[in-house]
């Protein structure tokens, strides 16, 4: 048996180019459906786990999928924001806890999530270092976000401007990092968590500046009326909130009308959930309530149908590859007819010649299986994270 293995190995080593092509093509055709299966399974698990942990969502009318993907996975929101009054309304109903999410801004590619401290408890988040945000302007980073931004507790990050032509405000806000979360393996790892009011400051709905009514501020005043002071361009808004200037921050307008992109609704009990869903079931209303699991099930069903289509294509490719490999082996044996005849003439039994050829084929297939298994293992370990990175 050792001699058979030795001869097969020497043949493959000598013809390493041909062997590598065969191993590569067979390995790839084994790897693709296996990896697809792993990625879809893990992706489905991740999707449904997050959805299962989020009972209900409230947001502006429109695509339920967009609302769910934004609220659960912090995708850029595509729907119009809803009003903060909806949060107050839900809280006042006594039927559910309402956790607002503001998702419009980023910091160097990491989504800034404006919310309340209730969100930490709701997602069972653990602070690995530092503390939760307590003051306007502070932020807490998810584990991956901290790594991506290369900052830790005690350092600061800047919010990215919403756009070059955003003249309404939303200039970068410098935010001190007061905490970093422990890795959770969820989209929260990628988030920059701030208080909802801080998100409103970034959007320009609140700001802080010098007191233009104070004596000595005449140089910054353009026009002083009875109940209103108009400042000139020399008055600069603060770009960092500190204990010294905190009191100068103020909102213009009624916070009830301020925007939130989604509201996580946590019913007190099952009955409250049913009542709430009934209340918001009315079509054409100003808001929609969705059950994330139902939305994600639809996404998963689509994923499955895409997976099945790819598997069908892979099966066809697999058959073509097997046919090609068989042809290569058959042609190779034909080309080696004289060599095999030599073996027979110098005393090799027919079975041994067949064993050598079969071992060569087995070695190629076995190497392809090992290659495909290794790659599939890598995909099962890093595939979903890699896809998440690609998608972000």
């Amino acid at each position, binding site marked *: 048996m050792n001699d058979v293995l030795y001869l097969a190995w020497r043949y493959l080593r*000598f013809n390493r180019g041909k062997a590598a092509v065969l191993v590569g093509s067979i390995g790839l055709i084994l790897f693709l459906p296996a990896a697809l299966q792993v990625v879809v399974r893990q992706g489905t698990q991740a999707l449904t786990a997050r959805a299962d942990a989020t009972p209900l969502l409230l947001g502006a009318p429109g695509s339920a999928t967009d609302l769910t993907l934004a609220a659960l996975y912090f995708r850029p929101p595509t729907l119009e924001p809803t009003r903060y009054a909806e949060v107050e309304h839900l809280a006042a109903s006594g039927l559910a806890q309402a956790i607002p999410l503001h998702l419009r801004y980023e910091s160097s590619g990491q989504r800034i999530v404006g919310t309340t401290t209730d969100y930490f408890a709701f997602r069972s988040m653990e602070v690995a270092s530092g503390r939760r945000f307590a003051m306007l302007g502070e932020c807490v980073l998810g584990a991956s976000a901290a790594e991506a931004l290369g900052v830790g507790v005690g350092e600061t990050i800047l919010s990215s401007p919403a756009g070059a032509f955003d003249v309404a405000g939303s200039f970068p806000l410098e935010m001190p990092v007061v905490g970093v979360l422990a890795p959770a393996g969820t989209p929260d790892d990628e988030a920059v968590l701030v208080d909802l009011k801080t998100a409103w400051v970034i959007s320009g709905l609140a700001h802080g500046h010098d007191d233009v009514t104070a004596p000595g501020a005449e140089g910054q005043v353009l026009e002083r009326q009875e109940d209103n002071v108009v400042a000139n361009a020399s008055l600069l808004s603060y770009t960092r909130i500190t204990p010294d200037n905190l009191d100068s921050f103020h909102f213009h307008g009624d916070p009830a009308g301020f925007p939130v992109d989604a509201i996580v609704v946590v019913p007190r009990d099952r009955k409250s959930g049913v009542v709430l869903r009934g209340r918001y079931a009315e079509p054409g209303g100003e808001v929609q309530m969705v059950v994330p699991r139902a939305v994600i099930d639809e996404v998963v069903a689509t994923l499955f149908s895409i997976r099945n289509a790819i598997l069908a294509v892979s099966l066809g490719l697999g058959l073509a590859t097997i046919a090609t490999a068989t042809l290569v082996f058959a042609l190779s044996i034909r080309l080696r007819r*004289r060599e095999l005849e*030599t073996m027979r*003439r*110098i*005393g090799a039994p027919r079975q041994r010649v067949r064993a050598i050829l079969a071992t060569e084929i087995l070695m190629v297939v076995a190497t392809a299986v090992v290659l495909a298994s290794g790659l599939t293992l890598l995909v099962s370990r890093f595939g979903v994270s890699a896809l998440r990175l690609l998608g972000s």
Partner: protein
Amino acid sequence: MIDVGELEFGYGTGEFRLQLAELRVEGGESLAVAGPSGCGKTTLINLLAGILEPQGGRIGIAGLDMATLDAEDRQDLRALKIGLVFQELELLEYLDVLDNVLLPYRLSPVLEIDDTARERALTLLGRVGLEDKVRRPPGKLSQGERQRVAVCRALVTRPAVVLGDEPTGNLDPTNRDHVIDAILGYGRDAGAPVVVVTHDHELLPRFDRVLRVGE
């Protein structure tokens, strides 16, 4: 010893028929088989090697009657007792010179490779002037060197009989002499009968006897 009597062989329904009333080649004796193309010289070697089966008569090789052996036994006989050198017998390109010489040990289940076999292979390669090329692939050898490797492969198992079919065809005189010296030298030293088919009339005087077929 080779002992053939009343041998008959034909391919299918074709007109070619080989008939040989009697042929004996004693141990240590050498026999050249000469004759025109298509007269059956190669067929005779294939019959003696047990590659072809006769339709009549007897073939005795090293004391064994071929008629009593099945295909598997003839295979084992070839591995153990017969050294074959063919003009067209290939070296395996993916093995180096030493591994090519030791190939019968790797292919036959009745032979086992050991240090003695390796030493014998190296000694044979030394005798034909290839001691410094044992790890070379056959692709880097000249035609004459390749044929010398093939001779070493035929002799490494210390065969009781040596059969050659045009082993010196296409070789220059120097290489031709190397190959024939090696084959005949082995036959004499080991007391093995040697039967070689050749078209080269210059070689005939080197053999003890000449059998002319088809003339």
